[in-house]
């Protein structure tokens, strides 16, 4: 599991890769929150394009970031979900909490 953080015009993108389970979600949470708490971005995008495996711990991870971002009036986007991740995301009804983007492949495209 690895997290790569990008910052552009007050927006933060976390590019996740590897497997997301309860074990690795803790590490991701740590890295994202540390950076986000400093920067207080107006939008956080979680990019799942490099994620090969995810269980419901990934949902907890997204929900937790939504709560955090709400604290300073920011919002969360999740992007590039594969069909399996999409299935779990829709079980969770995450579309109520954050924006789901389909095709942000190019990082230039994170306006």
């Amino acid at each position, binding site marked *: 599991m690895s997290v790569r953080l990008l910052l552009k015009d007050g927006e933060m993108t976390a590019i996740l890769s590897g*497997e997301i*389970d*309860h*074990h690795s*979600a*803790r590490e991701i*949470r740590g890295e994202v929150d540390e950076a986000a708490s400093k920067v207080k971005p107006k939008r956080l995008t979680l990019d799942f394009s490099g994620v090969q*495996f*995810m*269980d*419901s*711990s990934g*949902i*907890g*991870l997204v*929900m*937790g970031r939504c709560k955090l971002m709400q604290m300073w009036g920011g919002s969360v986007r999740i992007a590039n979900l594969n069909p*399996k991740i999409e*299935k*779990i995301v829709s*079980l*969770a009804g995450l579309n109520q909490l954050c924006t789901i983007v389909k095709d942000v492949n190019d990082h230039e495209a994170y306006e």
Partner: protein
Amino acid sequence: MIMKPTNEMTVSFLSCSANESFGRAAVAAFAAQLDPTIDELSDIKTAVSEAVTNCIVHAYRDTIGVIYITCKLYENGQISIRIRDKGCGIEDVEKAMQPLFTTSDSEERAGLGFAVMESFMDTLRVTSKPGKGTSVTMHKTIKRRQAEKNT
């Protein structure tokens, strides 16, 4: 439906979170004998990951216990997976299985573990005794690729 399994394995390991990936990898390596698609294998890994994580996060919360997995393969392409702990148990299983229900607030749990198991496997059965432990049994039938081609 009583069938004799054609193959069988049992694995047990400590309830530390580093073993979540081991648990699902071990089951996947065994299930591979049924020649599942990548999709089917991914479903199985996800369901196992949920059940194993529950043992770590809930059953043995703040302690280290042993998690037991038994897998059986059947001639018709079915796999049965039983994941067992000797942890705290569940008072009200029906309530626990409701989507979004969780007793954990310190860890970021979504309350979706059982919902994911149910949605990714063909069957799910949970039995539990408070103070004794919990047992989760799941089945999935792997489609025969040859049969698929023929029909």
